[in-house]
């Protein structure tokens, strides 16, 4: 008799995921989310499972440099994508400027949302550099002029990351520090062409 608790072969796939620059060969049930691969298969427990429905942002990682909720991504669909988790942000012992800023500003209490906040902020600063507008960018703003990253802009752009401890004021300060220093790898205020790569 066929075992009924094992998915059939066509319900699993062998695949390679690129996580923090390292190819990982895995055989996965198609139901497995990227978040579960990171935490349960690869021991990368920085990304957290908060709501598991894309509502809290604790699972945020970077996919090809863009922030995304790893709980809503099926791992099998992420082949060829470059995945960066919070574990992949530091260079050796040198923390990423946003990690430094979160420590410096004490931008956390329990810390559960912090890896997601930091990955989200890394992606967000890249979006600003790429000229992405936000909901609070004035409707009349010139689309070809770089966005000025005000406190309102930071709050709006980070609204996909919830912090139940309410550390928001210091999270905003930490992001402001890095944005002001232009330390995200892009010089402050130097924007790429908005909407680059899509038109």
């Amino acid at each position, binding site marked *: 008799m066929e075992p009924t608790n094992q*998915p*059939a072969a*066509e*319900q699993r*796939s062998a695949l390679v995921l690129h996580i923090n620059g390292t190819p990982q060969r895995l055989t996965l*049930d*198609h*139901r497995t*989310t990227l978040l579960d691969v990171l935490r349960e298969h690869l021991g990368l427990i920085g990304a957290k499972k908060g709501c*598991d*429905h*894309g509502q809290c*942002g604790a699972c*945020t990682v970077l*996919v090809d440099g*863009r*922030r*995304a*909720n790893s709980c*809503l*991504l*099926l791992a*099998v*669909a992420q082949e060829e994508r470059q995945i960066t988790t919070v574990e992949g942000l530091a260079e050796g012992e040198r923390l990423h400027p946003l990690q430094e800023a979160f420590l410096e500003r004490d931008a956390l209490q329990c810390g559960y949302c912090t890896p997601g906040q930091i990955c*989200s902020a890394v*992606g*967000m600063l890249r*979006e600003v550099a*790429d*000229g*992405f*507008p*936000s*909901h*609070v*960018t*004035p*409707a*009349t703003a010139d*689309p*070809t002029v770089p966005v000025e990253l005000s406190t309102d802009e930071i*709050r*709006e*752009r*980070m*609204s*996909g*990351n919830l912090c139940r401890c309410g550390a928001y004021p210091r999270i905003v300060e930490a992001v402001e520090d890095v944005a002001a220093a232009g330390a995200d790898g892009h010089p402050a205020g130097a924007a790429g*062409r*908005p*909407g680059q*790569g*899509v*038109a």
Partner: protein
Amino acid sequence: MKPFGYLRVSSVEEAVRAAGEHPGARFLAGGTNLVDLMKLGVEEPRTLIDVTRLPLDRIEELPDGGVRIGAMVRNSDLAASVPVRERYPVLSQSLLAGASGQLRNTATTGGNLLQRTRCLYFQDTSKPCNKRLPGTGCPAREGVHRDLAVLGHSQHCVATQPSDMAVALAALDATVHLHGPDGERSVPATDFHRLPDDHPEQDTVIRPGELLTAIQLPPVATGTRSRYRKARDRASYAFALVSVGAVLDVRDGVVRRAALAFGGLAHRPWRARAAEEVLQGAPATEDTFARAAEAELAAARPLRDNGFKVPLARNLAVGVLTDLAEIEDPADPGPSRPA
């Protein structure tokens, strides 16, 4: 979640063929709604056909001045597109008013238009729901329906269509391009979503096995302005209670052309034709705008707990039309606030 097969396709034809060969298949794009619904047990596809590698990820400027948006263009890329921001601000603003940065980076144009209602009963498989399981009833009519429809609902369903982008597309007279087993066809965005009537399980007019391939925007007349405004329970990252997408052309104080659509009020983006009739050729004054909104909303049939949406919709419409009519200099933000 139930086990499922997974396959990846590289052309539209291959995708449509695969859908025909795999009963119970679903197309997977960004997955931000579909994967969530699979976790909830609302969706139980037997096969996922991954369409994210299809060559439908471009925003093309057309010779006639219009724009064609591939179905795989990410919401964040569409919102940031310079031609879209310059010619169709209502579309960029509607996208930015929805979801979070993470979700907009993942969700696609096609998926956004096809997302399902967030009615609590639809998402809870322990409850009856005519949309999820036809014939089981609609507990929302007597239950929790503060977020639900006031226009066009039926005894079978009071759900609302949740997409902000769809509201902008309705106001812009966009066209939806589909590719199915019988070839290609196009549907006006205003006819793409349905009212629930006797078949609330059908959100749209899309047919089994059809793939949404592109959205096309017609050229806009010089001098036309557009804007999106949304009221919600918190300042960011929440679905609309009510939203308004408006396109307005005013010359010498008279409305030359107006297109208005509401979100959060019905099972589809609610194009306000009665309001537009009042607006057409009328003086561009707050009084006209109020009469127009009221003409449209006279048809509202609120449920026990969502009557607040009617005056909210009226005030949003008057506010956004007034702002659009008063802005003379694009460099002058005028009396408007961020939408």
